[in-house]
C-alpha cells in the first residue's frame, strides 16, 4: 500500500519513546512561482531570505500579542509533550508541541532576546540557517493547528499560532506550500477549493435534485445564486460531490425544505473553507472571507448559514465578523453566521421536524469532534454547545449512539490527522500516522459497543478518514456526515 508502516493499534494508548529524526523526510511539495505570486508572495527563495524572515518575525511579534507572549512564556514543563497526535503517531520528538515551537523560538531568542544574543548555548538559541529553514518547512507542516496542546499548556500556549506564523514567514521568503497556496489561488479565480466553475456547480445541483426526487418522490430544491432568498448557505465544496459529504448537503436541503425557508448557495462564495488561516495570512484570510460578505450583499439574503466544516467554522464563527463585518445588513435576530447544526437543532427542539430514527438502524454510531469546532469555536449560546448540539442532532436521528473514551472527545478530541492544510497526498505517511490516536479510540468503541460508523462535521475529517480508515482495517465508508444521518431520518413532506 505504501512505503511506510501503519502503526499498530494497541489495546491501551501508550506514549512512545523518542525516535529522533524519523519524520525529518516528511515535507509537502513546495508551491510553484505562479501560485506564490497570486497570493502576493515571492516566487522562490529570495536572496537575503534570512533578513526578510527575521524582519517578518519581528513584525509578527508586534502584530500578534499571542505570538509574542507564547514565545516568551514557555517554561519547558513538558505538559504538552504527549498531547500531539503527530508525536503519538510518529515518535519524532520534533512533533512534541514544545519542541515544534522551539524550532522557531530558538531563532527568536538568538535574534531578539538578551540571553540568546549573548549566551546562545545556554538557552539553546541558534542562528537562522538553511538547515533550520528546512526543519521549519518539514515540521511546521506536521502540525494540523488542532490546538490540542493549547488546552493542556498551563499558559494556553497554542502551537497552532506558532505554526501559522512560521508558515507566514516561509511564504514571505518564497517557500510556500503547494497544496494550500494553489487552493487559495483557485478560490480567488473560480470561487472554491476544488476549482468547480459555476456551470458545473449548477449541473451538479440539478443532478442532486433529480436524484433526491427519484429517491423519495418529493422535489427538494438545491438553489444557487437565487436573489432574494432568505438564507445564504456557504459550505465546503467537497459537499458538492464527494462521498460522504454530498449526503450531508442533501440533508441540509431536506431540512430547509421542511422548514419552508428559502435558501441559496452562491457560485461566487462556493467555498466555506478558508485556507488563509492555515498559512497564517490575515490578508489572504480576509480576502477569502470578503467573498461571503459580497455574496450576501449581492443576493440580498437575511441570514448566513455555514455547512459542515471544522476549520471553516472556526474562521466563520470566530473571525468572520472581524474580517468581513459588520453584518448589520442581515437580520439581527440570528447570529451571524449560524452553523447548519444550530439551525437543524433548533428545528428539532421546536418539534418542527419529523424524524424516523429507525432509518439509521443499520448503523451503530460514534461521533468525532472536529478539532477546530471543539477548541476554537462554539455553537449555540452556552460554552460547550459545540459538543452537545451535534450529539443531540445525532441522537435525534438514530437509535444507537456511543461516545468514544472521554480523553479523546470534546475539548480533548484528537485531530483526524489531516487538518491544517495537510490533506494532501504528498503527506500520506504523516496523515496515516497522525490518525493513530483517533483510530485507537474508534477501535475501543467498535469492540465494546459494536460501533459501525463514525459521524463527523468537517470536510477535512471526512476526506481524511475515507482515506486512512482502510490502513487500520476499517472500511472507508464507515465515516458519515451528521446531516447524512439527518437526511436518512427526516420524513420529508410530513408537515405539509
Amino acid at each position, binding site marked *: 500500500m505504501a512505503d511506510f508502516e501503519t502503526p499498530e493499534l494497541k489495546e491501551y494508548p501508550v506514549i512512545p519513546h523518542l525516535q529522533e529524526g524519523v519524520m525529518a523526510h516528511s515535507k509537502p511539495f513546495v508551491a510553484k512561482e505562479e501560485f506564490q505570486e497570486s497570493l502576493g508572495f515571492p516566487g522562490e527563495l529570495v536572496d537575503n531570505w534570512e533578513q526578510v524572515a527575521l524582519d517578518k518575525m519581528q513584525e509578527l511579534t508586534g*502584530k500578534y500579542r499571542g505570538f*509574542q507572549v507564547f514565545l516568551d512564556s514557555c517554561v519547558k514543563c513538558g505538559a504538552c509533550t504527549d498531547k500531539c497526535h503527530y508525536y503519538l503517531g510518529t515518535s519524532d520528538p520534533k512533533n512534541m508541541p514544545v*519542541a515544534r515551537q522551539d524550532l522557531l523560538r530558538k531563532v527568536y531568542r538568538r535574534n531578539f532576546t538578551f*540571553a540568546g544574543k549573548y549566551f546562545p548555548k545556554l538557552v539553546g538559541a541558534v542562528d537562522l540557517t538553511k538547515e533550520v529553514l528546512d526543519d521549519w518547512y518539514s515540521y511546521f507542516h506536521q502540525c494540523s493547528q488542532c*490546538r490540542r496542546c*493549547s488546552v493542556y499548556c498551563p499558559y*494556553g500556549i497554542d502551537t497552532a499560532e506558532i505554526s501559522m506564523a512560521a508558515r507566514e514567514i516561509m511564504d514571505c521568503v518564497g517557500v510556500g506550500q503547494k497544496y494550500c497556496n494553489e487552493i487559495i489561488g483557485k478560490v480567488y479565480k473560480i470561487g472554491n477549493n476544488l476549482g468547480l466553475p459555476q456551470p458545473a456547480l449548477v449541473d451538479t445541483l440539478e443532478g442532486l435534485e433529480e436524484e433526491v426526487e427519484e429517491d423519495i418522490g418529493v422535489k427538494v430544491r438545491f438553489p444557487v445564486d437565487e436573489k432574494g432568498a432568505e438564507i445564504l448557505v456557504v459550505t465546503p465544496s467537497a459537499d458538492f460531490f464527494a462521498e460522504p459529504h454530498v449526503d450531508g448537503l442533501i440533508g441540509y436541503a431536506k431540512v430547509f425544505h421542511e422548514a419552508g425557508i428559502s435558501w441559496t448557495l452562491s457560485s461566487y462564495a462556493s467555498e466555506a473553507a478558508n485556507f488563509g488561516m492555515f498559512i497564517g495570512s490575515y490578508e489572504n484570510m480576509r480576502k477569502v472571507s470578503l467573498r461571503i460578505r459580497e455574496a450576501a450583499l449581492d443576493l440580498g439574503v437575511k441570514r448566513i448559514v455555514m455547512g459542515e466544516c471544522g476549520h471553516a467554522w472556526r474562521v466563520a464563527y470566530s*473571525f468572520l465578523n472581524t474580517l468581513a463585518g459588520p453584518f448589520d445588513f442581515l437580520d439581527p435576530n440570528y447570529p*451571524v453566521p449560524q452553523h447548519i447544526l444550530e439551525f437543524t437543532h433548533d428545528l428539532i427542539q421546536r418539534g418542527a421536524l419529523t424524524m424516523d430514527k429507525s432509518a439509521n438502524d443499520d448503523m451503530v454510531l460514534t461521533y468525532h469532534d472536529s478539532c477546530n469546532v471543539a477548541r476554537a469555536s462554539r455553537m449555540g449560546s452556552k460554552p460547550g454547545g459545540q*459538543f452537545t448540539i451535534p450529539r443531540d442532532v445525532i441522537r435525534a436521528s438514530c437509535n444507537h449512539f456511543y461516545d468514544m473514551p472521554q480523553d479523546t472527545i470534546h475539548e480533548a478530541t484528537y485531530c483526524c490527522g489531516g487538518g491544517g492544510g495537510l490533506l494532501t497526498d504528498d503527506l500520506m505517511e504523516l496523515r496515516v500516522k497522525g490518525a493513530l490516536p483517533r483510530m485507537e479510540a474508534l477501535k475501543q468503541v467498535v469492540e465494546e459497543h459494536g460501533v459501525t460508523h463514525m459521524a463527523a462535521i468537517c470536510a477535512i475529517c471526512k476526506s481524511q478518514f475515507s482515506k486512512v480508515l482502510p490502513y487500520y482495517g476499517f472500511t472507508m465508508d464507515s465515516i458519515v456526515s451528521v446531516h447524512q444521518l439527518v437526511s436518512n431520518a427526516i420524513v420529508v413532506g410530513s408537515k405539509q
Partner: protein
Amino acid sequence: MPFLTVVYALLFYLATALLVGGLAYKIRQYAKTPAPLKIPTTPAPVTRSGVVLRMFRELAFFESLFKSNKWIWVFGYLFHFGMLLVLARHLRYFTNPVWTWVDLIQPFGLYAAFAMAAGLAGLWARRFLVDRVRYISALSDHLMLALLLGIALTGLAMDYLTHTDIVALKAFFLGLMYFNWQPIPEDPVLLLHLALVATLMIIFPISKLLHAPGIFFSPTRNQVDNPREQRHLAAWAAKLENR
C-alpha cells in the same frame, strides 16, 4: 561602611531596578501589542467575569496543568505555593512593625520551604528521568532549577544549621529601603542566599520566568468568547479596510 555591605546594597538596588524596569517594559509590550483575532481555547467563558474566574482557576489551581499531567502538577504546585508562602513569610524583614498576618503564617512558612524544595527536586528529576522532558531541556532550564533550589536550601540551612543574625539582617534591608544603610551580617550562607536571590531578580525579566506576567496576557485564556456578538478589530487590521 564595610565593603560587603556596600557591594550588597548596590547589588540589591541594581537587582530591584532591573526587575522592576524589565518587568514594566515587558508588561507594557504585552499590553500594547494587539490581539487581532479572537482565539480563546474553547469552551471559553462568554462573559468578562467568566474570564476572570477562568484566570483565577489557572492561577490558584493550575487548572490546565491539572488536566494534563498530575506529576508536574503536584511538583509545580508544591514549588509555587511553597514559594509564595515563603515569600510572604519574608515580609517580616521588610515591615516594621510586622503585619499581623505575616506573623500568623510564620510557622507554616517553614513547612512551605520544604514543600518548595521538594517540588523543585521533583521537577528537576523529571528533566533527567522522562525522555521527552530531557529532550526539551536546555542548560538554562537546569540552571534555573539549580538556582531556585540553591535559594531554598541555603534558606533552610540558616533555619536549621547556622543561625544568622536576623535582627541585623532586618536592619540592613530596612536601611536599604529608607536610604539609611546598616551593616550586613557577614555570614557566608546568608551572603550566598542573598546573592542567589539577586541573581534571580536580575534574570527574571529576561528569562522564561516571564510566564508569570505572560499568563495574564495569553489570548487563549483571557479572551471572552463572543466574536459573533461583538466585532473585534485591531487597529492595524482596521487600516486594511480603508485601503
